[in-house]
């Protein structure tokens, strides 16, 4: 049970001291097996393919993409809930890519996760006190003021009533449950929090409460976030830098302002223009609504079981040419800090 102290000190690759998390070539392929006696592999779901990024201390990296783009798989690999097929994850200068469960355990204090669904991520048979205090129990950490007092402090920190210590999750609303989940992740004072769709299950008015809470906690406790979401407006609000994923690939990575004001990858451009804005559309006299001119992507995201060759976006891209079907575009830095994987990027001086 107790973690073996002989931690395999794999080559602590040096990276910038400001970098808390560094991911290189992260890949996850899920095999598809057939047959009962003779299991044979008939396919490979390429959920995440060669994804690389850095997260600096105290910053928030937002990851956006449509369903099936591999953003959740990436998040789970970061906290080592899923074993990566290939690539390297450096946390605080240490290689944690293939640490065994025992060696990983001390690290769990520093990396925590907020889950999407506040209804299924809390054990309905445990009280709030037991849920929020579980990390201390599992890590055998003695808190200064005793578990109960410390849990109550945490509840207060996330804006819940400390007297609700003995209540069960079903007695709380969705927003309050998400706060319980957040209190639990904070118990061990982690350095990095990976949040997978932390607000998408909540109502609009509650979403803003949780977004503000996450921001307050970050400035108070100096947290670093990796926030995964499909809602581009939420990501723009919370993130400093944004990574856009499509079908397992990282297609664009840039500073928030850069990305939202000058998106370079056609997919990002299409994604941004597809978001309906809460501004009434003035109808024209002929009855045909004055619907905004926007880029309409045709079709659906292809299956990751058999992704299109080279640039995976070429089947839906309006700029696709032969080169897109044959040569995978490298992730190149087109402007300082603005990485794009595209042969024909938008918003470049040459293209305009």
């Amino acid at each position, binding site marked *: 049970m107790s973690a073996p102290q002989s931690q395999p000190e794999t080559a602590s690759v040096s990276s910038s001291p400001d970098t808390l998390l560094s991911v290189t070539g992260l890949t996850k392929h899920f095999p598809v097996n057939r047959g009962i006696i003779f299991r044979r592999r008939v396919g490979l779901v390429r959920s995440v393919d060669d994804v690389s990024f850095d997260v600096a201390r105290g910053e928030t990296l937002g990851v956006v993409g449509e369903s099936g783009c591999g953003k959740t798989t990436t998040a789970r690999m970061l906290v080592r809930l899923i074993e990566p097929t290939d690539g390297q994850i450096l946390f605080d200068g240490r290689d944690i890519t293939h640490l065994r469960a025992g060696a990983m355990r001390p690290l769990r204090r520093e990396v925590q996760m907020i889950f999407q669904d506040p209804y299924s991520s809390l054990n309905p048979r445990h009280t709030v006190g037991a849920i929020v205090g579980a990390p201390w129990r599992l890590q055998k950490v003695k808190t200064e003021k005793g578990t109960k007092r410390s849990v109550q402090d945490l509840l207060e920190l996330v804006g819940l009533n400390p007297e609700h210590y003995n209540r069960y999750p079903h007695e709380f609303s969705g927003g309050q449950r998400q706060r319980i989940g957040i209190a639990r992740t904070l118990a061990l004072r982690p350095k990095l929090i990976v949040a997978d769709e932390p607000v998408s299950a909540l109502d609009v008015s*509650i979403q803003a409460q949780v977004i503000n809470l996450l921001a307050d906690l970050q400035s108070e406790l100096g947290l670093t976030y990796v926030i995964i979401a499909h809602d581009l407006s939420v990501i723009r*609000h919370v993130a400093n830098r944004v990574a856009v994923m499509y079908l397992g690939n990282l297609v664009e990575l840039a500073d928030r302002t850069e990305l939202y004001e000058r998106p370079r990858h056609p997919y990002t451009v299409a*994604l*941004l223009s597809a978001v309906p804005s809460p501004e009434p559309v003035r109808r024209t006299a002929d009855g045909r*609504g004055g*619907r905004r001119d926007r880029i309409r992507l045709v079709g659906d995201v292809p299956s990751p079981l058999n992704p299109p060759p080279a640039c995976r976006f070429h089947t839906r891209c309006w700029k696709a040419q032969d080169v897109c079907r044959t040569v995978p575009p490298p992730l190149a830095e087109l402007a300082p800090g603005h990485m794009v994987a595209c042969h024909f990027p938008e918003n470049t001086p040459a293209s305009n």
Partner: protein
Amino acid sequence: MAAGDGTGEYGTTGEPAAGGDGAQTGDAARTGDTTQAGDSESGRRGGWRPGRGRATRADRTQADLESMSPPDPRYMLEVRDLRVHFPTDDGLVKAVDGISFRLERGRTLGIVGESGSGKSVTSLAIMGMHHGGSAKLGGQIYLDGEELVGADPARVRRLRGSKMAMIFQDPLSALHPYYTVGHQIAEAYLVHNKVSKKAAKAHAVEMLDRVGIPNPQARVDDYPHQFSGGMRQRTMIAMALSCDPELLIADEPTTALDVTVQAQILDLISSLQQEFGSAVIMITHDLGVVAELADDILVMYAGRTTEYGTSEDIFDRPAHPYAWGLLSSMPRLDRARIKRLVPIPGTPPSLINVPSGCPFHPRCAYAARTNGKSESEVPPLRSVGLGHEAACHLSADEQREIWAELVKTRLSPAVRSREDA
């Protein structure tokens, strides 16, 4: 306006359920004997049958009887003082409590609200799908002049699918996994039209083509699991439109979809509306989606209407603090980024214990300005502008002042989006 009066009358006692309902048999406060009352009612109709969701004449309140003016022929759908209550062991759940709206042909009404505000219950009531359940219905629903709340379930069944149709939120659970999509689309067409199975299948192929499914000849024999999420939602739309309905209700049609697919589906719904000239009700929690499609908007909170007006009214000059709260709590892409969102404090109320007076008052920042009125009196839906109504105790002048000086300034200025440049 008759319907507005109904709401006011119903609410003025402050204890909405108990007020002025002398004529009701099985409704409201007397939860204890509801079941019994329901049973004796069905007994009168000749034996037990699953028709409890249906309001009988006796279920009508005085206000209902007074407001029984003939429906306006201009409207495809007219809902007056609709109430849907569910008796439960814990008390009476007033899921919908006196809402009224009107919808013309070719126009779109957006119904906006948070979870539990009664949006979906309203749509199910229009479709007559509370029949056989425990729901108690009150008020009137006129579909093209025909009253539905007290109508014979068999009659409503004939209308459902042909004259009115619905697109459900989650296409994976709304489609039957055992039957091909073609079979499911043809089913409604066969029921409502005297055609051969072959003709119905041909019609299914045509519908699939209409909603933009590639290679419909082959895909018509596929099962739902062979379709992607967007294609399933297109199939749902094909199913709903197979009998050219005059009223189409879309209940969160894009919530389960990705943004790029959502844009395709919204385009599809609006172009099909142009083509068929149907009236559309769009139920959603996403203000972006309603702004995109709706001509008129009804904002619901705790089973009641807080505000009703045109799309411009709600977005450009909202009058109710709830709408202000929604607008200032959402991050927006079309505006400059603001440092901090202003959320609505607290959580939506339980529908068993709706706060006294204005149901929104515990979360309202301006409740103090009403001198305690918001805690004791249910605000009636009042006109605050031409065709714009709000249920708020603040005077229209106060509302305009607060919106212009306190709320609007908090919202960030609009920036022209990149693509327009």
